[in-house]
Structures are given as C-alpha cells and as structure tokens.
C-alpha cells in the first residue's frame, strides 16, 4: 500500500511516498513560494517519480504544515500530530519531540502509545528560528547548509542573547562590526536558539525519555550540538528528520484509510 504525505511549510514543501506505512519510497522537496498549491503538486510529482509509481497507485493522501488548507485532496492533520507520528515511526518509544521549522517551533510530549499528551508552541516573540538562520547565513555570506558545520569550529563562542529574531539580527550586525569570527558568531547564535528551545521543551518534557528533533532545522549539526550540550544527552535525529511531518502525514493517512476500509467492510 502506498500513501503520500505532504508537508506545506512556510518555507519549503515536502512530499513523501510511504510504502506500507513504514518504508520511505520517495521524497520530493521545493520552496513553498507564493503558490503553495503548485509547489505541493510539484513536490508530490517528484516524490512519486522517485518512488517509481503513478499517482493512481496511492491509497491515500494527507497534508500537514502551515499552508495545508490549500490542498483539497485527502485528509489534513496538524503539524504537531504529523510530527509526532513521524518521530514515533523513527524512534518508537520517544516521549519528547522538538519540532523546529522555518517560522514555528513546538515541544511535544508523547505518551506510551505515541499519542500527543501535551504540547507547547513557541510564543509570538520567539517566532522564526529557521528564517532567522537563513538570514544569518545570507548576512554572513555563507551557504545555509554550511553554517551548522562551521559553528562546530568555534573556539570562543560569542553570546547572542535574544529571544527575538529582529533583535538578534541587530546583535549579529554588532558582532560583525566587532569583527568577530563567523564560527564564533554562529556558535553563539545556536547556543541562544538552543536555550530558547530547551526552555520550551522543559515545560512539557519527560526527563526519563530521549528527545527527538524534527523539522527543517533538525539536521543542522550546529543546532544539534548546541542542544545536546545544554541538555547533556544525545538527541534522536533521523536522516529524514526534515521530512518527519510529511512522513507522519503519510502514516496517519494510511491509518485513516485502513479504518475507513474496515468500517466499510463491517
């Protein structure tokens, strides 16, 4: 059985084709831009192509993410529900999930069945972690996928203490004008972001269980290291962490489909 999960985020749109609610058969990704429906269509096509199947082989489609409502097909799930399901698939038994995306972040506490037990979303004034990192990369003139790595080389991290991305950008400019090394700036930025995220997580977390990181920022080594340093534990990060929402949606789509089939059969 194939199902497709679409995660239409503020920044990028991800599509996953899942085989039997478990194996990732195909992936697709692109910027959301100002035509989210078209971007979703393209991402899905890419995922179908890489899975080597046609759209009519899909049993179910589900969408999640910020702009999920532009998708009229299939079912819809909230970002938190989808990420929880995606995280649970990669790390069964994980109780704590931290979702870090372009505009929002959230801490989720799961119960022993992988069900959302509690969650906290970012407050308004700390919106935009991923977007902020993008702008940092741009200002520093370093490719986005390299800043995380670069931060690991910091010898003298410079604090960039701010909850707010606007103020943090000003602080960034201040550090640039003080001619601080980019690696040290970046490490400082990751430390500040990590504090923000861990603060949110601690409001809901189960300290006896591991923490799973998902979302667009999840694969960023600088981010992972900074959180790990504060928490003193290793994070669960799947190589598909960025696709966790789409994977979760695909899983949930499969379950809904299954249930409906059962209902019809009954």
């Amino acid at each position, binding site marked *: 059985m194939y199902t497709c999960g679409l995660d239409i985020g503020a920044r990028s749109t991800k599509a996953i084709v899942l085989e039997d609610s478990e194996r990732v058969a195909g992936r697709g990704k692109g910027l959301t*831009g*100002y035509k989210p429906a078209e971007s979703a269509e393209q991402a899905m096509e890419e995922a179908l192509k890489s899975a080597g199947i046609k759209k009519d082989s899909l049993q179910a489609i589900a969408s999640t993410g910020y702009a999920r409502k532009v998708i009229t097909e299939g079912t819809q799930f909230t970002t938190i529900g989808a990420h929880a399901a995606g995280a649970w698939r990669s790390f069964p038994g994980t109780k704590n999930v931290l979702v870090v995306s372009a505009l929002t972040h959230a801490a989720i506490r799961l119960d022993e069945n992988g069900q959302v037990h509690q969650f906290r979303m970012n407050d308004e004034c700390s*919106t*935009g972690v991923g977007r902020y990192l993008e*702008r940092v990369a741009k200002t*520093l003139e370093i490719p986005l996928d390299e800043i995380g790595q670069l931060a690991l080389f910091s010898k003298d991290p410079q604090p960039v203490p701010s909850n707010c991305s606007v103020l943090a950008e000003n602080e960034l*400019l201040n550090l640039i004008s003080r001619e601080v090394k980019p690696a040290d700036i970046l490490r400082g930025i990751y430390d500040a972001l990590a504090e923000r995220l861990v603060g949110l997580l601690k409001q809901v977390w189960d300290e006896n269980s591991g923490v799973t990181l998902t979302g667009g920022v999840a694969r960023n080594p600088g981010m992972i290291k900074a959180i790990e340093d504060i928490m003193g534990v290793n994070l669960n990060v799947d190589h598909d962490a960025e696709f966790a929402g789409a994977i979760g949606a695909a899983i949930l789509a499969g379950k809904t489909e299954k249930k409906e089939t059962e209902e019809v059969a009954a």
Partner: protein
Amino acid sequence: MLACGIDVGSTATKAVIIDGNRVVQGRGRVNSGANLSRAARHAFLEACREAQCHEYDVTYILGTGFGRSNIPFSHSQATGTTCHARGAIFRYPETRTILDIGGQDTVAIRINEHGEVLDFCINDKCDAGNGRFIESVADLLNLSLSNIGELSLKADKKLEMANVCSVTGEVEIINYLEKGQDVEDIIAGIFATVADRASSLVRRIGIEEEVTLSGGVTANRGMVKALEEKLGVHINCGVDGVYIGAHGAALIALEKAEYTPGGW
C-alpha cells in the same frame, strides 16, 4: 581635490567621491556581508574606478553608517543621520524632513535650511528592520527584490499587516497565501504597512515639506507610492537615493579637508 564618503550600512556599503566643486565623480556599491572593512574597501575602489582616480588622490575619507568604525583607512566618522541631512539638503535645498529607510533602522530627521539636525526619531525596537523586512518577504515569496515593487502596483487591494513585528508578519503572509489571496495584494499590503510605520515616525517629528526619501527603497516604486499615499505629500526621491548618506559624508569630508591646513 577629491573627498570620499563611505556609508557602511547593514545591507549595502556605498561610497561617493566628489571633487573640490562638490561634483560627484564616482560611486561604488557592494554588499556589506560579514567583513565590513573589506566591503568598505571594495566600495571605495569601485568609486575610484568610476572617478578614474587613484585611491591616493582622495584627500579625505569620512565613514558613516553602522559600520563606520570598521573603515581602517577613513580619516574620521560621522553618524548616518548627520550625513543624510547633509546629503539631502545638498540635493534638495528646500527639504526639511528626511526619511531614511535602512536595513536595520528607519530614521525620520527634521533639519533646518543649513542641513543641521533639529530632531530625529528612530523606529521602536519592535518595529525594527523595515528594509530587511521587504527583502525577507521577497525571499520568502521566492520573488526578486526588483520584482516586488512593480508587482505591488498591480494590486487591487492592500492586505495590511496587523503585526508590528516583521517576524510574525511573515506568519501573516503565509496565512494570506493559505487563504488564496493574490500575491500582489499581499505585497501592496506590506508596503502600506512599512509606510504606515515610517509615516508615524515622521509625524512624531512633524512633517515639514519637502520630504526626502533615502535608502535602498528609493528604487522601489511601489514603496515610494505607498509612502506618498500615507504621508499625503510629494516625496523627493531619486533612484540613486541609496547614496544620499555617502554623498553627505563626502560633503563633510570635503569641508574637513578644506579646513585642515595642508590636508588632513
């Protein structure tokens, strides 16, 4: 004699070289990036190239903008506000109000007929980053910066942002997109919002005509139109408005060079 002003802004670094008759001889503009002294040097050399002069021909160099202390080869510095005032009054002798929409800050400046700063107002902390907000929105919508100004002119309506904050403003944009709103209307709304913030700063110091706009947004027709609508007055605005600060700095540099016996 040649004098140069270098304006190291948060987004772009600009340089203007003038001669002893205050005529612009060369201009340079580069991205500021992460190395401000390099940016300053590049902008300066670009201006020298255009002026067809050797860098040693420039008698006096004055730095301005937020990175003004990062220009190791400058002779002195002045803040952006002072330089904008000088640059604006030189270009538009009747101007009394200047609005500088920069990357980091928006500043409204009231000046007298000599170009001296009488009062100024800078945006609230929470209102920060107007210039960069526009840039960031273009990026989010996957559009080029030069496109969005023109696009906004095609709008049927303006979807203004309720949010003060430019970061949460992006959340609102996504929400509009999800509801299927036209991108033109969204952009027009963003310009109206930025114009709204800027005009409230101008009102705080009191609008006195003529009003001059400076900064990178001068090249953005949609933004200029939105500002004129909000302020209800004509705005002096040239496409090279981004150089006003550097130009003002060059004018001050020339004075300093003239007043300092035997050069600097």
